[in-house]
């Protein structure tokens, strides 16, 4: 990582800016709240001379007093927070004891969860039936995150990395290629297994999707973006995430609507324990898993090459 040039600290501006402690705190706080300081498109010419010239950067910020005050306040905050948390732990019920406060919701989930949702894995039943809209929100959080990363890291930005930041291209390493070739099928198989058995065993859409995404990242590292781009290109990414999220919305809306109104649903629960059971949990797990796999791979590609 490039160290910034250490600016000389004996500059006339230091005295001017720091002044009394109170005024410099005020300036320091003002700076935080000033909307002007947010990156409005900067003048390009000043962006050019920013790297080269000898502007004493550190001398402009009021250094001594606010830093001390900030450190003291931060220390007080940390101590108070830690003490409060530890005291709270002392007042909590003992670890691992039978919980009298295990409330009716938990009781209901365990005793009737399998009957109502058809899922042997009670956690999968909770997150994809009882709290399905929460899980939909999580998928949208992931989608928004990858969209933000796409917007922020597009290769067409005018700023660029400094020249001395070098990323090693590993895509011609023979050992890495052979190892990945041996491992990746197993990784994909395990990911698909976790994905499809989400309602029967530990796992589910998020973990299985993360495993598949990790496999895609491995392919991308060892063989370069051209090979992995054949599996997941930007177009595939858009189509898959949009279709999966739309399917989740529509399918879950349908079962919620029919369930709430007591209508007959075409989605049955099946026999708990079978692979084709638990209503919509299996397809929803697959949808979530595809979103997660594309997200993991997309974020990696954006950080690596600035494009898909």
């Amino acid at each position, binding site marked *: 990582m490039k160290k910034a040039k250490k600016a000389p600290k004996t500059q006339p501006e230091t005295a001017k800016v720091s002044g009394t402690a109170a005024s410099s705190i005020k300036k320091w706080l003002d700076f935080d709240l000033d909307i002007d300081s947010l990156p409005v498109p900067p003048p390009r010419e000043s962006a050019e001379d*920013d790297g080269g010239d000898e502007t004493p950067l550190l001398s*402009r910020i009021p250094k001594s007093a606010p830093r001390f005050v900030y450190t003291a306040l931060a220390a007080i905050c940390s101590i108070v*927070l830690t003490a409060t948390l530890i005291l709270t*732990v002392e007042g909590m019920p003992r670890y691992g004891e039978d919980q009298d406060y295990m409330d009716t919701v938990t009781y209901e989930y*365990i005793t009737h969860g399998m009957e109502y949702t058809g899922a042997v894995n009670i956690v999968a039943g909770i997150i994809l039936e009882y709290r399905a809209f929460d899980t939909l929100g999580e998928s949208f959080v992931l989608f928004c995150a990858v969209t933000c990363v796409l917007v922020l890291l597009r290769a067409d930005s005018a700023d660029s990395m400094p020249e001395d930041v070098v990323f090693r291209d590993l895509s011609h390493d023979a050992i890495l290629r052979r190892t990945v070739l041996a491992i990746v099928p197993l990784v994909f198989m395990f990911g698909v297994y976790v994905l499809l058995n989400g309602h029967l065993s*530990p796992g589910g859409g*998020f973990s299985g999707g993360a495993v598949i995404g990790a496999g895609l990242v491995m392919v991308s590292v060892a063989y370069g973006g051209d090979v992995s781009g054949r599996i997941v290109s930007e177009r595939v990414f858009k189509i898959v995430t949009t279709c999966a999220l739309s399917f989740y919305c529509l399918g879950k809306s349908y079962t919620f609507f029919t369930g709430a109104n007591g209508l007959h649903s075409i989605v049955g629960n099946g026999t708990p324990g079978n692979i084709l059971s638990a209503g919509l949990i299996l397809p929803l797990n697959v949808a979530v898993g595809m979103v997660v796999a594309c997200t993991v791979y997309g974020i990696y590609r954006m950080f690596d090459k600035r494009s898909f």
Partner: protein
Amino acid sequence: MGNLLYNYEEAVALILFSIGFMTLLFHKNLLRKLIGMNIMDSGVYLFLASMGYIYGRRAPIVENGDVSAEHYVNPVPASLVLTGIVVSVSVTAVMLSLAVRLYERYHTLNLDEIYAAARTRREHR
């Protein structure tokens, strides 16, 4: 001393949370702040997971049709941890990309130097 020694797992989780919080406050490097944030997340996960545990009970996966609530640990914290993990991954990705953009523009990850550079740039305008 109340239950502090019995609740060692929760205590460790909250100490982890505090370590992450202090990392967030005391370090100037953006990447270290990010790592502190992730340590805080880990503390929260450990806290939730230990809150749900009950001695001698199984993971909440029904075996042999046995659905009595006395045989399984609390499944609610597990589903909450899942939410937390997803949100933390998303937040980490967005913060990392913001850090990359800041590094490209200011050629440093030190937050004070970024502030100072932004201020000089604003004064030039």
